[in-house]
């Protein structure tokens, strides 16, 4: 796939259809891949990479890139395409300045998952269709099933379909049945005390690095309320457990109905907080209460929180459902 992508990118550059390419760049060792803009065939040949570790969702970069001179080629995976379409819906990107090449995705490997299995000192990784083999500095040679080290979002993939593109490289996939709400349901089934303990443990680890927010393709505010000294709620650090919760509740609320569930927030969290479980809770609730809705699936449907129906349920329904006191 990488070779096909480079070839296609070079073609489009040469034809003048685009003047730059948004993709992923190789790093110093195996998995430290950085999103990057390429402007020449030489750069593409030298640095462009697409493998099990090109996990970063590129769509958010298009907010800025699409405002620049000329047309940019962007390679979007299914997840990324939902985010991109949502950004179009919110008028955040200039569609005409972007040439989208859709690329199929079979899931990305989470380096943290490898490390959690005690694998470290990685010097090389070989990837086959369903396994990865790691060579280490300690002269080990370890093979694990790919399925076991994928990102959670990939294990519970919601869609392998690129929903918006100018062309597809390879076969486009389909929306898949996923168990992505199971973890939410499991939490819902707990008692409030258990849930409280669970989230205290998770959120207390937050160091307010803002990685979740800054990577989030839905969080594209010119200035976040939490950074705005005039908003009255700005704070740089979670000084206590309340502020930890506040930031994450409000962030999840602000992206509710807009979050495509791309899972970037959980991917980048340096403290491994399962932030996607907050966003998914909103998605699950809204699906159940107001009808199925997938942000980014189209550009027309009204998001549930800026919509209503006269016979909507009352807020008290919350206290009648799920995990009891």
């Amino acid at each position, binding site marked *: 796939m990488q070779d096909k992508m480079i070839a296609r990118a070079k073609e489009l550059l040469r034809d003048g259809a685009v003047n730059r390419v948004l993709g992923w760049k190789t*790093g110093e060792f195996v998995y430290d891949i*950085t999103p990057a803009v390429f402007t020449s065939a030489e750069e593409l040949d030298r640095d462009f990479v697409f493998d099990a570790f090109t996990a970063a969702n590129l769509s958010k970069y298009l907010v800025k890139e699409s405002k620049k001179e000329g047309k940019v080629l962007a390679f979007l995976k299914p997840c990324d395409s939902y985010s991109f379409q949502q950004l179009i819906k919110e008028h955040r990107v200039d569609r005409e300045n972007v040439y989208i090449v859709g690329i199929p995705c079979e899931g990305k490997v989470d380096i943290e998952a490898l490390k959690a299995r005690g694998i*470290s000192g990685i010097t090389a990784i070989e990837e086959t269709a369903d396994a990865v083999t790691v060579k280490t*500095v300690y002269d080990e040679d370890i093979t694990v099933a790919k399925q076991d080290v994928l990102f959670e979002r990939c294990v519970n993939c919601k869609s392998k379909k690129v929903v918006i593109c100018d062309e597809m490289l390879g076969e486009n996939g389909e929306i898949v049945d996923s168990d992505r709400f199971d973890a939410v349901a499991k939490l819902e089934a707990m008692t409030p005390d258990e849930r409280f303990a669970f989230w205290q443990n998770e959120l207390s680890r937050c160091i307010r*690095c803002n990685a979740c927010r800054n990577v989030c393709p839905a969080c594209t505010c010119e200035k976040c309320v939490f950074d705005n000294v005039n908003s009255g709620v700005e*704070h740089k650090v979670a000084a206590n457990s309340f502020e930890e919760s506040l930031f994450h509740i409000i962030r999840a609320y602000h992206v509710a109905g807009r979050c495509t569930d791309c899972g970037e927030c959980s991917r980048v969290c340096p403290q491994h907080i399962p932030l996607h479980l907050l966003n998914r809770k909103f998605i699950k609730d809204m699906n159940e209460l107001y009808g199925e809705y997938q942000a980014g699936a189209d550009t027309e449907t009204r998001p549930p929180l800026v919509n209503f129906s006269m016979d909507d349920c009352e807020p008290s329904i919350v206290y009648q459902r799920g995990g009891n006191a």
Partner: protein
Amino acid sequence: MYQLSLDNLQNFFRQIAAHEKLYIPTDKDNVAVYAEYAEGMQLTQKLNTNRSAKDFFFPQTENLYDLRMNGKNLEIEDTREACEDFVVFGVRACDVRSFAILDKVFLADPVDSYYKNRREHGTVVSLACTRPEETCFCQSFGIDAAAPEGDAACWIADGSLYIKANTEKGETLLSYVADLLTESDGSAVAAQQEKTRQLLAKLPLANTDFEGMKKTDLMAHFKSPKWAGLSEACLGCGTCTFVCPTCQCYDIREFDTGSCVKKFRCWDSCMYSDFTLMAHGNSRNSQLERFRQRFMHKLVYFPDNNDGVFGCVGCGRCLAKCPISMNIVKVEKALEVQDA
């Protein structure tokens, strides 16, 4: 040098904890974290903790004082809690060195009394590395992962813990556990050190050399065209700064509780758009400038002002944690290429 069997490690911890608060790196939620020792707590097998050890001396938030209205008068209330002596066990060589770097900032005139207070009460017990990882590059800064500094230094080899005091505080610590220790010639340690050093030489970043940075003029680095490409993907989050053991920037803020105003400080990140926000606005308005500031600070300004000591210890946390995998090694290499 003294020795004790690892079978006796819990006793070792227990006896220290009987005298002072003891913090050890232990496993929690799949990563290693420092936690106050509790009976039975196991030392992690992981190389290093997820977050750095700087919190012990420079916590993420810290209340400085309270302001209170009394009629028309403003009263200042010192809210500092009396700091007790404590021991941090198992600090890796890189993190131990980070304290020396923080000292250069906080203990230089004017002395930061909050930091100094904690530093004086803390005893640092280091632990030599045996399995350095691909993200490690401490050796680039002259740090020997096999021979860590600290008030006392430890090694684990052949089922035993070896310990050596380097300072008075270290000696005091040894006195807590004197009955558990036996003298050792340290030969096992030397053998272990040799193995570690072989591994260190094989690491992918073993040959990263920051000294070359010093050959080029400050302004040439500052004006380097490389910054645009390097900072292009930067999200402007604070992950690198917050996991970094040497980042020491903070902001001082107020919180109105309704009955008083709490003046507190908290970590800040030069990657943030509101870093050093002033009445006129920001001094660094683009992410390029903010990104450049961080690396210029660590690799150019800091050594310029501190006898050539870089503001980095090569712990590799930022390499592992950056959401877009941009890091100091890549920056160094890019600048080096340009300079060549």
